[in-house]
C-alpha cells in the first residue's frame, strides 16, 4: 500500500497561487477557506525587508494530533497515509482545529469575512453549506472522506484530493501530471502548478521521485520538532547539510 506524500520545491514556487485556485475549484471551497493556501508575509525591516511566500496544504502528518484529539473518531488516517474527516460523524467541536499545528482545518460555518457571501447566492437545499454551479459531480463526492461540499457544522480540510488519488493504479510510485495516464489521479494543486514545484508520490517506495528528492535535496518538514512528522516535505535549496528533525533520532516509533 502506498503512503502518499508531497514535495514542494520552494526554489521553484513563484507564489502564483494557482494551486490555491485549483484547490478551490476542485473542492468547491467558499471564499477565504483555503485548504491549500500560499502565505505571503514580510520578514525584516526596511531596508533589509524581504517579501516571502510559503505554500501550505494539509501536512497529512504521520502522527496527526488532529486524529488523536477527535473525541468521536470522525477524523482518521487512511492506510495510504491520508488524514480524512467523516462528515457523518463530525460533531463540530473544533478540537481538531485547536490541535492542528499548521492551521489547515476549517469550520464549515463561520461568518464570512469576504463579502458578498456567495453562500447566499447559491443556497443548498440538501443541508450543505452551499451549492455552487461549478461543484464536483455528486458521483465523485464522499462525505465519509470529507470530499465534496461539506454539510453545516463540520470541519473540512485538504484531502490530497482523495477522490483522485484513491483511484490511482496500485503500485504507482509517482503521480506525475505530465503522464496523461496518471493526470486524472493526481491532486489538483499538483496538476495545476505551472512552475512544476510540486511532486506527489509514494513515500515508502524507494524508487519514487518524491523519495529521491527528499533524500538528495534534503527535504525538510514544517515544525518538525512538534513530532507530527508531516508527509509534506519542502526543498529549500538542497546543498546544505541536513538539520536533525528532532533532538534524538529514532526515539519515537
Amino acid at each position, binding site marked *: 500500500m502506498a503512503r502518499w506524500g508531497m514535495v514542494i520545491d520552494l526554489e521553484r514556487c513563484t507564489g502564483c497561487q494557482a494551486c490555491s485556485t485549483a484547490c478551490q475549484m476542485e473542492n468547491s471551497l467558499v471564499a477565504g477557506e483555503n485548504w491549500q493556501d500560499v502565505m505571503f508575509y514580510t520578514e525584516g525591516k526596511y531596508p533589509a525587508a524581504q517579501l516571502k511566500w510559503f505554500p501550505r496544504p494539509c501536512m497529512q502528518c504521520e502522527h496527526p494530533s488532529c486524529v488523536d484529539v477527535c473525541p468521536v473518531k470522525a477524523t482518521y488516517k487512511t492506510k495510504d497515509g491520508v488524514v480524512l474527516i467523516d462528515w457523518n460523524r463530525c460533531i463540530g467541536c473544533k478540537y481538531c482545529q485547536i490541535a492542528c499545528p499548521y492551521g489547515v482545518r476549517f*469550520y464549515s460555518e463561520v461568518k464570512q469575512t469576504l463579502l458578498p457571501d456567495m453562500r447566499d447566492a447559491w443556497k443548498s437545499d440538501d443541508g450543505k453549506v452551499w451549492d455552487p454551479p461549478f461543484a464536483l459531480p455528486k458521483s465523485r463526492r464522499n462525505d465519509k472522506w470529507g470530499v465534496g461540499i461539506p454539510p453545516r457544522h463540520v470541519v473540512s480540510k485538504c484531502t490530497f484530493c482523495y477522490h483522485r488519488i484513491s483511484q490511482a493504479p496500485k503500485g504507482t510510485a509517482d503521480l506525475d501530471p505530465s503522464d496523461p495516464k496518471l493526470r486524472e489521479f493526481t491532486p489538483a494543486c499538483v496538476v495545476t502548478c505551472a512552475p512544476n514545484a510540486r511532486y506527489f508520490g509514494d513515500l515508502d517506495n524507494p524508487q519514487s521521485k518524491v523519495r529521491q528528492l527528499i533524500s538528495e535535496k534534503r527535504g525538510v518538514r514544517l515544525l518538525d520538532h512538534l513530532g507530527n512528522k508531516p508527509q509534506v516535505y519542502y526543498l529549500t535549496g538542497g546543498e546544505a547539510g541536513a538539520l536533525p528533525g528532532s533532538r534524538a533520532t529514532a526515539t519515537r516509533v
Partner: protein
Amino acid sequence: MFASAIFRKAKANGSWLIDNIFAASAVGLVLTLAPLLVFLYFLGHNAYNFTNDVPWGLPVATYVFFVLTSTGLTFIASLAMVFGFNDFYPAAKRCVWLALVTLVAGFTALALEIGSPFRMLWALPTGLQYVSPMFWMGVFYSLYLVLLALKFLRINAGDWDSSLSRGLGLASFVSVVIAHSALGLVFGMMAMRPVWYDPMMPVYFLITAALSGAAFAVFFSYLPYGFRQENMPELLRALASGTSLAKVFATMIGITILSILSRTITGLWSNLDGLEAFQYVAQSPLFYFELLGLVISFYLMVSKAHQRQARWQILSAVLVIASLFIGRYEFVIGGQIVPLFRGAWVQGFAEYTPSFAEWLLVGASCFLFLLLFSAGEKFIDLASERWHRSSAVAHRPDATTLADASSAPSGH
C-alpha cells in the same frame, strides 16, 4: 396534593429576594435564549464570531468557567462529606445543588456552541477514541452529573451518612477530579499551543476551580438570607462569621494569584513561539481588573478587620467570580490568538471579538443557572441545618456551638 405541598414549601422558604431572582431569571432566560435560537435558526453558527484562527470563543470560556465552578463546589461540599471537615456541613447541601446547576449551565453553553450536540450522543460511545482527552472529559463529566444528582437525591431525602450516600459522595468527588483533569488536559496536552501546554494544567485547574467554587459557595450561601449573617441558620452563621472560611478563601486566592503571575511572567519572559499571547493578554485592561480583583479579595480575606464581615466576604466573592470569568476568557482566547500559518497576509494577532449572539449565549447560561438555583431555594430546603441540628441535638442535647455540631456523628 403534591403541587400544594410544593406551594406550601415555597411560601415557607421563599424570601422576596429569591422570588424576584426566580422571576427575573425566568424572564432573562426567555429574553436571551429566544433571540439566540432565532439567530441560530436563521444564521447558524455564522451568528458567532468564531474564526478559523479562533475556533473556540467566549462560549467555550463560559463552559470552562461553569464546569470548573461546579468542580470547585463539589470540592467544597466534599470538605464535609468526604474529608470530614465538619465545619463545612452547613454549606454542603447548597453546594451540591449549586454544583449540579452550574454543571447544567456549563453543558448548556457547550451544547449551544458545538455544531451537532445531539450527534455526540451516538458518536461518542461508538467512536471510543480513548486517546482523546475530550472523550474522557465527556465521559467523566457525564458520570459526575449522574452521581451528583443521585447524591443530591440521597441527602435531600435526609440520608447523609448511609454507606450508599457516602459512597456516592466519594464517587462524585473522584469522578469530578478525573473530569476536571481531563478538561485540564484538553488544553494542557496541546504542544502546538504553548500558552496551554503544561502537564500541570489539571493542578492549575484544580486550584482555580476550588477558588471559583468557594466564591460561588460564599455568595450563594449569603443570597438566600438577604446577604445578612443574622438571617442565617445558626451553624451556617457560625461558619460565615468564623475565620476558617475566610482563611480557606484567602489561601486559595493567594495560590491563584501566584499561579497567574507565574504563568504570565514566564510567558512574557520566554522567547518561545506562540507565547507572545501573554503580551496580548498583558495589554488588555481586563487582565489588570482580574489581578486587582484578586488582590483586593485577598487583602479583605486576610485582614482581621474585614474577613469575618458579610459585606467584605460578599465583595470578595463577587470580585473573585468576575476575575475568574475574565481569567477563563483570557485563557481560552490566549491559546489561539497567535495564528498558526493562516493564510496570506495574516500577520500579528488573530482578531476576535465576541458577537451579540455569543453574549446572548452567556446570558442564557447565567440566567439558566440563576433560575435553577433560585428554583432550588424555592422548592427544596437547601440548608443542611435542619438535619444537622436535629442530629446534633439528638446526640448532644447541649450542642449549640459549631465545634459541638461539627462532632455530630453519623446515623441519621
